[in-house]
């Protein structure tokens, strides 16, 4: 179960890593390397997303929560970065990542 949660967290955060590296470093590394980085991040993320879906499907979807970090702590209002692992979020994550990966791949030629 713990593996699925880690896969899920990786699936959600890897596209951000790709966006930050390609967006901020694109001028230095050039277009080709930026394409490779984002595509690699998306591929791994999609694999993780599908893996998390498979894991959830076989062992049960919870719901579980995956805490990432603290966010807002102001007076009585408290909010954290917490991912929710349940059927709805995991199926949506896998679907979004698959389509997004294919769109990234399609864009390579343009």
């Amino acid at each position: 179960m713990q593996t699925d949660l880690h896969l899920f967290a990786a699936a959600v955060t890897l596209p951000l890593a790709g966006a930050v590296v390609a967006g901020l470093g694109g001028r230095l590394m050039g277009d080709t390397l930026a394409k490779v980085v984002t595509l690699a991040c998306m591929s791994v993320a999609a694999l993780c997303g599908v893996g998390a879906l498979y894991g959830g499907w076989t062992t049960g979807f919870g719901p579980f929560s995956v805490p990432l970090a603290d966010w807002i702590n102001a007076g009585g209002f408290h909010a954290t970065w917490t991912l929710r692992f349940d059927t709805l979020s995991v199926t949506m994550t896998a679907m979004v990542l698959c389509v997004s990966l294919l769109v990234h791949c399609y864009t390579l030629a343009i």
Partner: protein
Amino acid sequence: MPVYRFFAYLSLFTFAMLMLVSSSDLIQLFFGWEGVGLASYLLIGYWYDRPSATAAAIKAFVVNRVADLFFLVGIGLIYVLFHSVRYEEIFAAVPQVAGAPYTLFGQPFRMAEVISFLLFVGAMGKSAQLFLHTWLPDAMEGPTPVSALIHAATMVTAGVFLMARMSPLLEAAPNTRLFVIFIGATTCFFAATVGMVQPDIKRSIAYSTCSQLGYMFAAVGVGAYQASVFHLTTHAFFKALLFLGAGSVIHALHDEQNMFRMGGLWKKLPLTYAVMWIGSLALAGVFPFAGYWSKDAILNALWAADSGMSHYAWVLGVITAFLTAFYSWRLIFLVFHGAPADAHARDAAHESPLSMALPLVVLAIGAVVSGIALAPYYIGAQQAAFWQGSIFNAPDNSIMETFEHVPGLIALLPSVVGLLGIAVAYLFYVARPDMPAALARSCGPLYRFLLNKWYFDELYDRIFVRPYGAIARILWKDGEEGAVEGLPRDLVQAAANGASDAVRLQTGSIALYAFTMLAGLVVVLTVALCG
């Protein structure tokens, strides 16, 4: 133009969407919601040297902000009522506090209804439902992969996702759900009628997206959240396929988007032709393609819900099934069949490279099998075990059981009208190609009404955009340039004029000074002695 930015934006967009779907509280969801809005702005306006693209990007951003204001107020009310924004705490407390009254304009409303309504207006903006849909067709100004990503799997599905996620709250708000059915069904019909006459290949598919989202909201309205998420998933595959296929056609014809300037392409683009057929069969809901399972489930649920509003939605939904098949095959026949409008362009067309063909093939497989493979889990016998409570149906909401028991003829009707739509499209664009033009001439006002998208853009231009522009101009010319800039400038001018006048008093002539002193002395003495 550097391409690295485009890839960075695509990944950022995906991340924002994932943040939205994987959130565990409404604030995090709102972060993803706004992140999607920002990334869509960047992507639609990617060709920033085109005025139409920047205008479309701003339009998408502003229309979404209008809806987001309602959404934000909804989140605020949730915090006021539940003292938390975490899903678990909200859902656990719904039965206790949902009936709390909320007075608005002197009228008492149930709090659950008010909150659900506000959240739904937020969802309407993101999912381009009627009245807040105007940004979606214009967003086609962006590159085609953007259209595929925004209008198939992400962004527009966020609204439907929000409704499914907040299902425990919506189950406590039956009146709002009636409104959801109404907006969903009306959008479904409206967008299909407009999509039927558009000459632009991407806009035609964009209106189709709008229409399919209407189906999903109608399903939410009757409480069949599972069916709407199912349609969302199958739709993501076949609509991404259609957009990318359209992109392949546009690529082959060097950025030609007008369908009436295409034609006869099927021998030149066999793969694109095949996948467009698969995507259209799935969209039209032909057995056994993906759309058949999800769209039939929604229409059956609308019939089984058995209320006035749901019957209204069912009738419009069936009419839309006909229109959907019609405009899908209109696209296929105009683009791939018939005489080419430009024979040179047709002969120069060539199939796309492998990196573009591969996604098309994968999505085509998804468009064929996702319906039949997922139906048992998403909506079938195992749905309760599959969803494991992440979508909530109230104990008195038995729609997920009853929708399978509608009369056979009713269940068959969407497929029949779909095939009828294909036949009519064949008649209009292959057998008798002169008929559409004759029909457009004989029904001129209706044709122009549809071609101009029910005049929504013109209406909004008159009601909102122009008055806003006029007010902005008054504030700019009179308010800023007149008052804020003008007042200090006038003060400076007055001081300078006063100083230059005062300078004239000093002439430097001793005689004049002596005379002035004498005159002053005379006046003082006169006052002192005679006063």
